[in-house]
């Protein structure tokens, strides 16, 4: 029986046009719609696959932010056993520190540890620094492997074989003793889809737990001076017109280079 924890977070959906707040150092909250971080969705899927394969319980954990309930109920509908919110986080330019805070709260441990596997996405688009897993591993004195794309567990031997992506399609295989913290790149299968009806059912029949954030508040060791929209370097020659017109122009470009 494995005890699997999956630490997830919500990030702004980049399909929306993100606007910078008047302070110049954060995003305008009105422009932000939060969704589950893509890599965390893979971490959850990897956790669910492991639970199904080897048996055990899966707890999904997230910081309490708007929209988090939907994400947690969706995880329950997908097969998570427990869903926990970390509450009472100070607002602010927290994306750089939130991961650390979640890790510290978990380490301070509201009955969630010991775990056999702690999974989280290898990085998230709002900080791109991939620190959640390593901080957690450090605090719990556990090994960490990132960019994972396959995990096999030998429950008897209390060990796992973890496949990590390197470059050019080459992967590296590691044997690691449990417990371990993994930064998931891709689950072995695409994240499962769950119908809305099932999520609604989970909302009726299951409940979310909360634990207050604890541990020293995460130290912000970097100072954000300014956020800005990148200037286009304008390298591309832009073509416009109706689809047929653009298609014709593109074909001319290709023909001129002998590519047709």
């Amino acid at each position: 029986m494995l005890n699997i924890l999956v630490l997830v977070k919500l990030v702004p959906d980049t399909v929306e046009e993100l606007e910078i707040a008047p302070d110049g150092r954060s995003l305008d909250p009105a422009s932000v719609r939060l969704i589950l971080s893509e890599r965390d969705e893979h971490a959850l899927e990897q956790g669910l696959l492991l639970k199904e394969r080897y048996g055990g319980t899966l707890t999904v954990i997230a910081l309490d932010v708007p929209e988090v309930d939907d994400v947690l109920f969706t995880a329950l509908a997908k097969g998570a056993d427990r869903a926990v919110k970390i509450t009472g986080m100070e607002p602010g330019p927290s994306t750089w520190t939130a991961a650390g805070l979640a890790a510290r709260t978990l380490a301070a441990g509201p009955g969630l540890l010991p775990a056999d596997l702690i999974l989280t996405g290898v990085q998230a688009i709002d900080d791109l620094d991939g620190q959640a897993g390593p901080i957690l591993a450090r605090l719990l004195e556990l090994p960490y492997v990132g960019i994972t794309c396959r995990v096999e567990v030998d429950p008897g031997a209390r060990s796992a074989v973890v496949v990590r992506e390197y470059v050019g399609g080459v992967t590296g295989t590691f044997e690691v003793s449990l417990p371990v913290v993994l930064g998931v790149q891709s689950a072995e299968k695409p994240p499962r889809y769950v119908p809305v009806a099932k999520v609604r059912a989970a909302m009726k029949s299951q409940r979310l737990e909360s634990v207050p954030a604890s541990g020293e508040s995460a130290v912000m060791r970097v100072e954000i001076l300014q956020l800005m929209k990148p200037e286009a370097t304008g390298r591309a020659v832009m073509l416009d017109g109706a689809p047929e017109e653009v298609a014709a122009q593109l074909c001319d470009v290709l023909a001129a280079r002998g590519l047709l």
Partner: protein
Amino acid sequence: MAGEIWVLVEQWRGRISDITYEVLALGREVAEALAGSLQAVVLGPGAGESIFSLGAADGALMVEHSALAEPVPEVYALALAQIIPQRQPQALLIPQTNVTMELGPLLAARLAVPFLNSCRDVQVTDGRPVARCILYGGKVEASVTPQSAPAVFGILPGVRPPEQGRVERAPAVRALSVDLPTEFPLRFRGYTELEAGDVDITRENVLVAVGRGIQRPENVALAEELAAALGGAVCGSRPVIDQRWLPPSRQVGTSGMIVKPQLYLALGISGAPEHAQGMKEAALIVAINTDPRAPIFDIAHYGVVGDLLEIVPAMTTRVKQGKQAA
């Protein structure tokens, strides 16, 4: 000793990666601005053999240890965590690739030092290094400065031209020793090559690449038709591979393949650095994207702001007509 700027020499399977030279070129500028010396940090049992092209640096700090034979992130991080306190550099610049990905966060967690990742540039302002970091898939940039030294920076590919940092001269070498345990909870078992697919995309002249903008698996057929008409093959970005709409052998980018075709048609691909690294050397890059601010337009030669689902079929028709006419 004070004032050193370090660049980690990234090696992959016995070869120094180009990005190392790019970061050395940047490190040279930072070192000059901070009046420090530039040190190339080389880890590995055969570290001594790889220093002859590192002349951009004033010195090479060499850590030779059998446990460093393969780039196992935890072990590398442990070695760096031992030598950083010994010499207290102002900054450590790490080439940001899949090989080194965990080093920055592991070091930051271990040494409680600032870590700034996804830097597309670092400049010195008022005596402080200020990094330009990309966020939100390239939609926002942050200028960020560390609050203390030493600070660790993850530097994206393309920060400077590699030629600028490749100097065929061996810098002065200083050997540093580390004390690494013989047993780690993590044991490296070996590498596995990707199973060859039906098509080797690194050998194709024309690649039609699809990203998340293709939206549905059925739509991949639109790209297949265009690729067939152009005499090329279809490849894709990570989300498309993650969804198994295309096999892993078709992935372009840092984890996938590096391709240099005559034509790379990027359809519904935003141009994240991990993707760009795999295709930016293509002779002709054409991007079709609904978002006029998509970073792919910065590396494309030709761009169209529009719906690929409309433009691609129109192109296929055109190409086929052109072939019939000829």
